[in-house]
């Protein structure tokens, strides 16, 4: 049996629609949109990092709307309290009991804007929910709705008034992507075109929750061969042995890499993962988990590319 790899595959049509419509609003960023979608299909949380004004928030709005998910936006500020995220218990006079008023976190998609502007306390309220898919308030544990994922945006760490997320919390985001400035043609179209906010308001759902859930299920079934596991292991091992990185990748990072690669393979219309899939998602998956050694002469600008180039495919 052979697989035809070299002709354009017919991608699942609702997925194609999502990607196409998102591309109509966020111009010239097809690859980033695809990567964000890949992250969602892999059931991962997404972190979008870039300077203000390149469309981070727009992208998260567009994706949530297109997927027809119930979403809440939390604008993180330095005085945000955990209760503002999770919710508060208020005394009900009629029943003489405390009643829990759920916070914005109880929705399918959370748009956590400028997450690194909040204090670590508020950040951790969100991040705990991300990992456990549940929140605890007043000693009571409450399940969060399904699907549940967070699209967080943040400004680059060196900007004024930011609390950089520690490694342990960065690790909870499956991917971190950067948008970057649009190219010349896209920017021109943007400047001449309609207001993006109007476009978002007009978005109609392109994929049902059921379709999304089944795609997420399919991702886990994309075949991973022993040879590919060897490759992922070689990559992880290299980060642990190499003198170029301060810390190696965790097992969780390895799982994330594999799952993201599965998701990418599915979006490329394949039911087996290739080393190329791993290489494509690697910058987004490991970029925020690897800290290159900065002292000395060696200065790695792109740790993920460095990693890929250094490890031969077994």
């Amino acid at each position, binding site marked *: *049996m*052979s*697989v*035809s*790899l*070299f002709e354009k595959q017919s991608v699942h049509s609702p997925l194609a629609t999502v990607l196409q419509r998102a591309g109509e609003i966020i111009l010239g960023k097809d690859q980033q949109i695809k990567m964000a979608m890949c992250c969602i299909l892999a059931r991962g949380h997404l972190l979008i990092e870039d300077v203000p004004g390149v469309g981070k928030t727009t992208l998260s709005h567009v994706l949530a709307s297109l997927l027809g998910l119930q979403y809440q936006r939390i604008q993180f500020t330095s005085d945000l309290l955990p209760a503002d995220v999770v919710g508060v218990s208020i005394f009900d006079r009629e029943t003489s009991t405390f009643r829990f008023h759920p916070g914005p976190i109880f929705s399918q998609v959370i748009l956590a804007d400028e997450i690194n502007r909040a204090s670590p306390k508020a950040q951790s309220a969100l991040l705990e929910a991300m990992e456990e898919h549940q929140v605890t308030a007043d000693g009571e544990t409450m399940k969060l709705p399904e699907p549940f994922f967070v699209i967080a945006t943040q400004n680059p760490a060196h900007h004024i008034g930011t609390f950089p997320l520690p490694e342990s919390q960065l690790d909870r985001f499956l991917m971190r992507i950067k948008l970057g400035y649009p190219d010349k043609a896209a920017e021109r179209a943007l400047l001449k075109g309609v207001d993006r906010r109007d476009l978002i308001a007009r978005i109609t759902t392109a994929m049902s929750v059921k379709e999304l859930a089944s795609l997420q299920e399919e991702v886990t079934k994309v*075949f991973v*061969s022993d*040879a*590919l596991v060897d490759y992922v292991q070689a990559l992880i091992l290299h980060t642990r042995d190499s003198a170029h990185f301060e810390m190696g990748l965790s097992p969780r990072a390895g799982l994330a890499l594999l799952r993201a690669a599965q998701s990418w393979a599915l979006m490329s219309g394949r*039911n*087996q*993962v*290739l*080393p*190329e899939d791993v*290489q494509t998602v690697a910058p987004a998956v490991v970029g925020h988990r690897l800290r290159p050694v900065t002292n000395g002469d060696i200065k790695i600008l792109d740790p993920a590319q460095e990693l*890929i*180039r*250094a*490890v*031969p*495919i*077994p």
Partner: protein
Amino acid sequence: MLNQSALTLANITWLLAAMAFVVAPHVARLPIWVSLVCVAAGAWRWWIARHALRVPPWWWMGLIALAVATGARMEYGRWFGREVGVALLIIMLCLKILEMRMKRDAMIPIFMGFFLAMTNFMYSQTILMGLYMFICVWIFIAALIGFNRINTEATLKERLVPAGWLLLQAIPMMLVLFFLFPRLSGALWSMPQDESSRTGLSDTMSPGDISKLSVSEAVAFRVEFDGAVPQTEDLYWRGPVLGEQDGRAWRMYPVATRTKLNYVPQGTSIHYRVTLQPHNKPWLFALDLPAAAPEDAYFLADFQLRSRTPVTNLKAYDITSHLRYTVGAELGAKELQPYLNYDARLNPRTIAYGKQLRQDIPEPKALVEALLARYNKEFDYTLQPPRLGANPVDEFFFDTKKGFCEHYAGSFVLLLRAAGIPARVVTGYQGGEINPITRQLVVRQAEAHAWSEVWFTDLGWVRVDPTFAVSPLRINRGMSEAFGPIGVMNTLIDADKLGLLRQIAFSWDAMNTQWNRWVVGFSQDRQRDFLEGLGMRDVDWRSIAIWLIAGVFATGGVAGMFLYVRALHTRKEPIVAVYERLCSKLAKTGVERAPHEGPVDYWQRLQQIQPKMAQKAAPLFETYVALRYAASGGEPKRNVRDFAWRVRRFRVA
């Protein structure tokens, strides 16, 4: 410029360091300007590498080479010979590095460096030199490894560790070649000597010659006795016999040669084996008096033992001597006449005293005894004798009365001749030190000595040592005990109460002995003995050659087996091997797969550059991806074999 990538600063620095190491032992022998040219060339090359400059143009190099070669010709006066050859080789090596433009050019200095390492053995064949050259070769291999790295710079560890392994792996083959390579009758590094500048006795003796030697700790020869070692006072190692007195100096008479000495032995004979350090002179040393000359040697009429060729390499010979003997009693006046001659223009007081003595004491034996008594009473033995003027014997005998063996032997013989008694000076070595580990007697230059032989009617030639009369300790106990510390080694040995340093010194000497026997002196004969000891019969060069070839194949085979077994352990999956074959075939189109490039990426790149080839290879890539990454059912083994067959049939052309 073509590919300059290999000529990085680090690689150049390594090459220069390796060259400095290998040239360093030569520096003391080179003219100073040659060393300066080398340093200048090295510094220049380093500067070029440091600042990525261009190398000097060819005609410039040509002019420099011409100038330096002319300089060498003027310095040495010839083109051929060891000294000038080594000097030219070093100069050419240093100029060659200025011509390096690409990786290939760096190979020439490195291989010249290996050759230059060998030239050091023309001057010194000690253990230390062997170790030093081992290190030199190690550094050169480390430099070679650096030049062969692609893209990345080799670290210190990445150079030295594999280089060391390569050297260690070469040892079995080295041993096979060393023991089995057919030997010539001389050592490999015996080259025509330019100058004789080694320490040792010479064929003339003037005051101060032997006392100069007496501070040298260098080994003159080593002796293994078959039986017990004789008493120290019997250990007179006979060297040049000096019969002619010529002003201040004593010289050798041109005397007839003999194949056998006629003497009447008394007492038992002793057998021993002498291993003589090269001293560039033809004489050999034996205990008074040797019975028969070894092969390649003969006697002179004055009982000197001589080799037919100068001893330029370590020489070993077996010999038998009798310590008690009667010799020359039959000689007549004609044969003895040369031993009565003296230079009458010098030393008038001594000559007059000798003549007077004969008138006072006509009996020769009584005269000799009276003279020895006078030496004993009035003279002092010293290693720092006062300087002597125009009539040295007069001044020594009547004024200073302080001297070394050559003063005693010289004045004694002159006095006897003036008195009309035949006498002559004999030089050689006296005594020796027993190494308790090897049971060998080690005779050093410090043991150089001069004594006299006097002819009496009926008795013939009798050894008389006037130094013994002055300082019996010198003869009885040996040099170092009579005179305390001589040289650094002895100072240490004497300071050491526990004897540990002495033990080390003797162990070191024992090691040197083994080295001399098994490495430097591994001659044709030694090789034959060794191989016969291993059970080989009828050893000739043909059988050695056959064993050599067999040995080379055997060591090569063992190494090959080792590599094969290791390859089995780390063998790749068959599918990967087949895929790599496909990639290497496609690499001929100029599109080579990078190690980190996946199959689809590689195929897409191929399609952009070689679309036709990509179309042709597409099914193979699809099969590979399916076999390696897809959840393929069926019989994968058969599929892999089928894939391998298709790849084998795939043609790039």
